[in-house]
């Protein structure tokens, strides 16, 4: 296995007294695409939020390139090259399209991604660069959210349900640009409700159920039955 970029070891996650993740373990190699699937409430977003530093984690529960980063706050994780495209896009409503992209790059991390390249990837954004971000369609907003994350030149890109609320043709369009995004050696973790899309895009898959990993394997090796069983717990 090539270099492990991200290692999650027995991660527990809590929201106050409520435990959302129970001993979750996961690995992502450099340049790999890993999908995390599961029903609503399985803990997929919590997992991404923990990796991104929004939810507190035990120091050694998350390792980035071998360095323990559990407990590092979100802005610290961003500085270390972890970028999250959050569920629901969460663009900054007071900022224009271009300003949202610019603020994504405000850390000034070196790398191939900059404003012209993002506009190359999503040309429609260039046409609407000065529009207030809430005025864009759902698909365009998703592009801005991805572009904003790319502007920080991350090593690890986390995508939380980027297909949510979008028409299938738009989802296919966005996923169609993944190869370009991956061409620079980025690692990708995608959380998806759309299992077909997830399996098509990913090298390996983890399935979560009620906060636990119940199934894992390469995308090709998992059968329909196994996935259904793991997904629904029947």
């Amino acid at each position, binding site marked *: 296995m090539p270099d492990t970029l991200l290692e999650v070891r027995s991660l527990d996650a809590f929201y106050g007294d409520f435990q959302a993740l129970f001993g979750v373990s996961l690995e992502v190699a450099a340049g790999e695409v890993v999908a995390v699937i599961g029903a609503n409430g399985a803990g997929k977003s919590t997992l991404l939020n923990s990796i991104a530093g929004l939810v507190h984690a035990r120091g050694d529960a998350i390792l980035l390139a071998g360095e323990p980063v559990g407990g590092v706050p*979100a802005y610290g994780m*961003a500085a270390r090259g972890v970028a999250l495209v959050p569920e629901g896009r969460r663009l900054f409503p007071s900022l224009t399209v271009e300003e949202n992209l610019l603020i994504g790059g405000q*850390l000034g991390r070196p790398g191939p991604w900059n404003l012209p390249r993002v506009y190359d990837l999503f040309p429609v954004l260039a046409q609407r660069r000065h529009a207030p971000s809430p005025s864009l369609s759902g698909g365009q907003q998703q592009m801005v959210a991805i572009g904003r994350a790319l502007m920080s030149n991350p090593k690890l890109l986390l995508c939380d349900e980027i297909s949510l609320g979008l028409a299938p043709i738009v989802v296919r369009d966005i996923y169609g640009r993944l190869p370009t995004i991956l061409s620079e050696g980025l690692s990708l973790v995608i959380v998806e409700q759309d299992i077909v899309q997830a399996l098509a895009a990913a090298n390996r898959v983890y399935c979560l159920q009620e906060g636990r990993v119940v199934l894992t394997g390469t995308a090709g090796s998992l059968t329909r039955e196994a996935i259904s069983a793991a997904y629904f717990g029947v």
Partner: protein
Amino acid sequence: MEWANIILQGVLVGGLYAMFAAGLSLIFGVMRLVNIAHGDLIVLAAYLALVVTETLGINPLASLAFVVPAMALIGYALQRGLLNQTLGDDLLPPLLVTFGLSVIIQNGLLELFTADSRRLQAGGIEVDSIQLGTGLAVGTLPLIQFALAVAVIAGLQWLFYRTALGRAFRATSDDQAMAQLVGLDNRRVFALAMALSLAVVAIAGVLLAIRTNFDPAIGPARLIFGFEAVIMGGLGSMWGTLAGGVILGVAQAIGAQIDPGWQVLAGHIAFLVVLAVRPQGLFPKVQG
């Protein structure tokens, strides 16, 4: 012509009120915090200017070069060291802590400087005036104050909408968690916002010190004037804040003309009327 002069005076003093308000409005916009010690910090800046001008023997306007950076530093330290700890969902802690701060500053100044009234001499411009056509004269100092107020507000607008720092302010104000995800350390952003606010407070304080007599107890009234200007102008709009300040200044000027004891009261009444009739202010941008 008498009334025209009075209204003009009101407009010009409105610039000063707008400056009281600008710092307040900035902080509320970025971190939803109302600093009850705001007025007392204006007075603190005035006393700082007093110390600087007396020690260095320079003109009060020149003292801005010292007072502005000093207050900015105080703002950064205050936010980082104290006020950041109070921020959260509960509104009681920041309100009570800044209230406590207000009491501390007032009484600290009282201990250091006594309750004596002070004033800074600016070498004559306080009494200079410029003739504007028949019968209309405007004081040089009020004119400078107003020009400075416009410059400060224009500067803040530029900063908020044309710079990276302004983007950081707006983003943090929109969504704190998402701002962290793009690498913004909230604690630093808030501290910078407070530093900026107190820089504006510094300018307002120095101008106040030249314009009127000041003592440790006048802080709360400045807070109230700033607050009234913000509410009348409309939350979230810098130019609205200028408009609010002007309205307050004019209301007070008219009140003073009717009866000197009515000056401040007239301003309060104007505020209450706007609150009753158009509570969102005249040029609102955000819902408070």
